[in-house]
């Protein structure tokens, strides 16, 4: 018989087997993957990815996402410009989809990760009933959907390249793809075991 503290049970991030937290060097008893649980740097990796993502998000909004060449005239549109243009043309659903995917989701993800990373270190909102696991789960689910804009640009650029009319991806496409990639990394790097709430049988 062994006596264990329920608070010390953690799931393996790879195979989700329940493990006993043994301190610094944890390896999963089922799949052998390392379960990171550093006491000194718990959030730094996630912070680094998040800051990279935020930095990459700035050029993604400044530079044009799509460049349309019609009969020699170049016309670039940024993410926000594209949304406004679609809205003015009357394609409201598509404008909404692009707005949610490229502007709302990244910003929501930045804010949620920011809040989570701060709140696990400093007691902000401890007394308030904020379900942090739910917040984290939301970021994981909505995160990949911001890739929509990048894929749309890729498809349009591949589809339309005539001599008179062509669409070329802009600098923002690269910046935006990098930004999304790093937010995904930041979310994966976040150690969910740091949230010490609803841990009772």
């Amino acid at each position, binding site marked *: *018989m*062994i*006596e*264990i503290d*329920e608070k010390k*049970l953690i*799931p393996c991030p*790879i*195979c*989700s*087997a*329940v*493990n*006993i937290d043994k301190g610094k060097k944890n390896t999963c*008893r*089922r*799949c*052998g*993957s390392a379960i990171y649980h550093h006491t000194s740097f718990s959030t730094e990796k996630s912070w680094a990815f998040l800051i990279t993502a935020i930095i990459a998000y700035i050029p993604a909004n400044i530079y044009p996402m799509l460049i349309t060449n019609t009969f020699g005239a170049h016309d670039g549109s940024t993410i926000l410009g594209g949304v406004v243009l*679609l809205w003015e043309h009357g*394609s409201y659903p*598509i404008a909404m*989809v*692009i707005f949610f995917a490229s502007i709302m989701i990244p910003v929501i993800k930045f804010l949620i990760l920011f809040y989570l990373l701060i709140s696990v270190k400093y007691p902000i909102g401890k007394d308030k009933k904020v*379900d942090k*696991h*739910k917040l984290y*789960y939301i970021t994981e689910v909505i995160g*990949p*959907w911001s*890739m*929509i804009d*990048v*894929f*749309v640009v*890729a*498809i*349009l*650029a*591949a*589809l*339309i*390249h*005539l001599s*008179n*009319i062509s669409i*070329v*991806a802009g600098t923002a*496409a*690269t910046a935006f*793809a*990098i930004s999304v*990639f790093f937010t*995904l990394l930041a979310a*994966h790097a976040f150690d969910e075991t740091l*949230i010490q709430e*609803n*841990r*009772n*049988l």
Partner: protein
Amino acid sequence: MKLENEAALDNLIICHQCYTLHQEVPIKDGSKACCSECGGILYWYDTTLIDKGLALSITGFIFFAMANFFPLVQIEILGHEQFITIPKTIFSLLDNGFYIVGLLCMFLIFIFPLMIFMINMILFALLKLKRGEQWTKDLLILLAHITPWSMPDIFLISILVALVKLIGYAQIHIGIAFYSLIVFVLIDLYIVKRVHISEIWMLRKRIVWEESKA
């Protein structure tokens, strides 16, 4: 809380949505167990999981091959015809010098989905034959690493968005590959939603391996 030994931890399960600790209970074949706190699905109990998984991953693989070989959409602008396939989309990005976006797309919509279905096929075949104890373990770990990075479903929605953007400018003909991609995405979603990796681990534990018998 008292336990016999470390192996008894296998009877415990932590909800992946809200981190509540649960005790695993036996349930009816084909039914699911839900979390009492957040209602998320904890696990399914299904004795036909291996056969289902094998059949679905082979079907998905065939549809994925079809989605890649045939044209996705064909458009007509000013009398010119253009069509795209999935590989063509990726290569056109690389040709235009967008290496980062091109590589990212290549992994997210081509390599990872392909790998997932290949791994699933090998994995379920090995489990069916009750062979390869170490192999299945390595494949399961690899699968867990890749799964969050596979985005064929998002690509499908992107195609729809791109097509709606083109309405009015060009005539659009939808190709066979588009329908194949829809079927592929549905199978992919079903496998991701229905077959949790932890269930395969549970299943793997119950299997008596051929090698250890000999």
